[in-house]
C-alpha cells in the first residue's frame, strides 16, 4: 500500500487546461468517490485550486492509480487522456508524501510562501473526510501535512516579505506610517493594481479612500467597489493635501502631479509625510517629487525591485523549508511502516511476552516452595497459553495481509493492544480519537472478515463495508 498523487499544476499545464480541470466541491467529492468505488484506492482526496488539480490516493498499485486518475480527470475536463497525459505528473510513496508537504509549505506554489494553500488543502481534506473518502492513513497524513505547513510558516521567513507590487506598496506605506487607521489614501486613475492596493490598504484598517478619475463615472464605480468616495479630478490638488498615500495609475502621457503641486500641498499638510506610488507607464508623478522633504515616491520599477529582492529572500528561506519537509517525511514514514503486518505481529508478540515475563517475576517470590522443575513447567504452561491465544490473531492478520484494508486491521490491533503506547503521549487528542473510532469499526467487522477468509480468497471487501470504514473521520480537523 502506498500514497500516490497524480495531477497537473501551473508548472506543467497552461491556464487554459487548468481551468478545464478545475473541480468544484461537488465534482471533487464525486471524482474521489468514483475512484474508491472502482477499487483502485482505499482513500482519496481531490485538491483543486486555481494553480493545481491533484488527486491523492492510497492504494496498492501506483500505476493503476495513476491511470485511473488520468482517466477521471480527462473525462471530467472533457479532454482525451492522451491530450492530458503530457501535463500530468504523478508520484508515489515518499515522492507523493514529499509532494504533499511541499504543496502545503507553499514550496510548489506559483508564489513561493503564499498563505492560501494551507486553507485550500484543509478545505479539500475536510470535504473528503466528510464525504467518507478518507480513513486512518489520510486522516493522519493530511493533518500532518497541515502541521508541516504551519511549521514551515513559523520556523522560516518564507512568507514574511511581500512579493507582489500591491503588497510591497502597502508594506512600504506601513514602514512610513506604522498604523494606517487614521490615514487617507488618494487613488488617481482607475487601474487594476491601484484597486488591489486600495483593497490591501483597507485590510490594514485605512478608513478614508478618495478616488479621482478623469471620468466621474469610473471614479464612482471604483469608489463603490473599494468603499471610498469619488472626488472631482479638477480638485486633485486640494485632495493631495489631505492624502497620506497617493496611488497613481492614469494613462496620461504626461505627469499628472508635478513637484510644484506637491510642494504646494505640503504648505497645507505641515510636514506630515506623504507616500506616493506611481504604477503608471508612462509615469504620472514627477520623479522630482522624491526630492521634496517628507515626500517618498516609489515608481513601478522601484516596487518591482522590492518584489524581486523579496522573492530572492524567499528562495533562500525555501531551502530551509525543504529540510523541514525532509524531516517530516521521515516521521510520517516511521508511522506508515508501523502499519505493515509483519512488524506488528512481532510487536504484538513482544508486548504479550513482556506481560507474561513480568507476571512470572511478580509471582516468583510467592512460589518460592516450587522446585526448579515445577518452575519450568509453569513457564512452559504460560508460554503455551500465550501462544494459543495469539495463534488465531496471528494467522488472521497474515491472511488479511494481502488485502487492501489490512492496514485498518493493523491499526485496530495496535490501538487495542496499545502497541504505540510509548508514543501515545505526543499524539494529538483528535488523532487518538480518530484511531480509536477506526479501531472500533474495524473490530466490529472482524466477524465477517473472518468468515470471508474461511470462504475463500476475496480480493476486496464489498464497497459498502469500505465506505463504512471510511466514515470514521475526525470532527476536529
Amino acid at each position, binding site marked *: 500500500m502506498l500514497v500516490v498523487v497524480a495531477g497537473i499544476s501551473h508548472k506543467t499545464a497552461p491556464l487554459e487546461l487548468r481551468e478545464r480541470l478545475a473541480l468544484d466541491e461537488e465534482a471533487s467529492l464525486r471524482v474521489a468517490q468514483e475512484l474508491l468505488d472502482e477499487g483502485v484506492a482505499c482513500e482519496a482526496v481531490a485538491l483543486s485550486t486555481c494553480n493545481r488539480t491533484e488527486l491523492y490516493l492510497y492504494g496498492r498499485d501506483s500505476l493503476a492509480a495513476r491511470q485511473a486518475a488520468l482517466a477521471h480527470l480527462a473525462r471530467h475536463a472533457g479532454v482525451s487522456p492522451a491530450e492530458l497525459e503530457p501535463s500530468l505528473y504523478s508520484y508515489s510513496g515518499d515522492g507523493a508524501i514529499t509532494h504533499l508537504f511541499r504543496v502545503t509549505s507553499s514550496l510548489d506554489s506559483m508564489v513561493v510562501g503564499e498563505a492560501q494553500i494551507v486553507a485550500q488543502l484543509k478545505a479539500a481534506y475536510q470535504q473528503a473526510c466528510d464525504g467518507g473518502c478518507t480513513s486512518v492513513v489520510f486522516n493522519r497524513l493530511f493533518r500532518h501535512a497541515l502541521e508541516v505547513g504551519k511549521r514551515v510558516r513559523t520556523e522560516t521567513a518564507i512568507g514574511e516579505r511581500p512579493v507582489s507590487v500591491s503588497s510591497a506598496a502597502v508594506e512600504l506605506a506601513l514602514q512610513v506610517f506604522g498604523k494606517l487607521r487614521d490615514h487617507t489614501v488618494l487613488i488617481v486613475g482607475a487601474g487594476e493594481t491601484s484597486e488591489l492596493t486600495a483593497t490591501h490598504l483597507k485590510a490594514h484598517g485605512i478608513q478614508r479612500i478618495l478616488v479621482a478619475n478623469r471620468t466621474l463615472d469610473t471614479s464612482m464605480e471604483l469608489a463603490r467597489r473599494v468603499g471610498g468616495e469619488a472626488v472631482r479630478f479638477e480638485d486633485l490638488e486640494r485632495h493631495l493635501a489631505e492624502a497620506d498615500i497617493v496611488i497613481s495609475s492614469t494613462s496620461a502621457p504626461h505627469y499628472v502631479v508635478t513637484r510644484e503641486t506637491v510642494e504646494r500641498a505640503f504648505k497645507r499638510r*505641515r*510636514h506630515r509625510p506623504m507616500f506616493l506610488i506611481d504604477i503608471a507607464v508612462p509615469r504620472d508623478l514627477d520623479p522630482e517629487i522624491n526630492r521634496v522633504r517628507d515626500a517618498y515616491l516609489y515608481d513601478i520599477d522601484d516596487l518591482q525591485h*522590492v518584489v524581486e529582492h523579496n522573492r530572492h529572500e524567499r528562495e533562500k528561506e525555501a531551502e530551509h523549508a525543504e529540510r523541514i519537509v525532509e524531516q517530516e517525511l521521515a516521521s510520517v514514514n516511521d508511522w506508515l511502516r508501523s502499519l505493515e503486518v509483519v512488524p506488528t505481529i512481532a510487536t504484538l508478540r513482544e508486548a504479550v511476552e513482556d506481560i507474561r515475563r513480568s507476571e512470572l517475576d511478580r509471582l516468583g517470590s510467592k512460589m518460592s516452595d516450587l522446585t526448579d522443575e515445577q518452575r519450568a513447567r509453569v513457564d512452559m504452561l504460560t508460554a503455551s497459553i500465550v501462544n494459543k491465544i495469539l495463534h488465531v490473531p496471528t494467522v488472521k492478520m497474515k491472511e488479511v495481509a494481502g488485502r487492501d484494508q489490512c492496514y485498518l486491521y493493523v491499526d485496530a490491533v495496535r490501538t487495542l493492544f496499545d502497541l504505540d503506547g510509548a508514543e501515545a503521549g505526543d499524539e494529538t487528542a483528535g488523532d487518538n480519537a480518530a484511531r480509536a473510532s477506526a479501531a472500533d469499526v474495524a473490530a466490529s467487522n472482524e466477524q465477517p472478515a473472518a468468515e470471508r477468509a474461511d470462504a475463500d480468497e476475496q480480493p476486496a471487501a464489498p464497497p459498502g463495508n469500505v465506505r463504512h470504514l471510511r466514515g470514521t473521520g475526525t470532527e476536529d480537523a
Partner: protein
Amino acid sequence: MDQTSVILVWIAYLLYAATFAVFLIGFFTQRPGMNRLGIVVAAVGLVSQTLALILRGIDAGHFPFVGVYESMVLVAWAIVLVWHVLEAFTRIKAVGLYVMPVVLVLLTIALIEYDPPVGLAPALRSDIVILHVIVMLVAIGCFYVAGGAAIIYLIEETLLRRRKTGGVLGRLPSLAALDRLIYHATLLGLPFLTMGMAAGVIRAETFRVPGWPTDPMVLLSAAAWVVYLVLIAGRVRRDWSGTAVAWLSVVGLVLLLVIRFAAVPYLSGFHTYGG
C-alpha cells in the same frame, strides 16, 4: 560591602551584554519572542544594578554620584530605567539595539575607572545638589533614548529615500513610531532638564559660586535646553519635518555627550565631581 556592589555591577554588565546579543539575534533572524526575552534579561540586570547602587550608597554614606565610577554607573542605570518605561508604553523594538551598546560603553568606562567610595566634599553636601543630580539623570536617560530613536529614524529615512528596501528596512520600526518616541521621550525629559537647571542655578546663587553663568557646562546645558525646547515647539506646531526633529534630537545628544566627556573633566570650574 563595596565588593558585593562591584560584583552586582558586573552581573548587570554581563546581563546587558546578553540582552544585546539576544536583540541582535532577534533582529537578524526575526524570531518572535527574542525582543521579549531581551527585555526580561535587561530587567534582571537593572535590578542587579539598582542593588549595586544602593549598596554603594550605604557604603559611601551618600547618594552615589561622585567620581567617574559612580556617575557612570548611575547614568547607565538611568538610561536603562527610562528605556524600560518608554518601551512599556510604546512597544517599539530596535531602540534596545542602540540603548544596550551605549549602556555597555558607559559601564565599561565605569569598571575601568573604578575608584573606592569616598566621603562627600563639603560643597556637595546639600539636598538641592542631590535633587539636581537625580532630575538631571532622568533627563539624560530620556534624551539618550530619544537620540537613539533619532539616529535610527535618520538611517531609516535615508534607506527609504534611496530605495534600499532590502536588508534591515523591514525590521526597523515605522518612521511614525520613531517620530513619536523622539517626541515623547523629549517631552518627558525637558521638564526634568528645566528642573535640574533651576536647581543648579538656585544652588549656585545661594552659595555665590563665582562666575557660574559663564561656566562652559552651564552654557552648553542652556544650549541643549534651547535645542530641545525648539524641537518640542516645532513638533507640536508641525513646523519641522520628521527629519528635522530627528536631527535636532541628535544635536541635543551630541551636546550632552560633549558636556559629559569634555566639559565635565576638562572645562568646568565646579562640576568636577565626575573626575
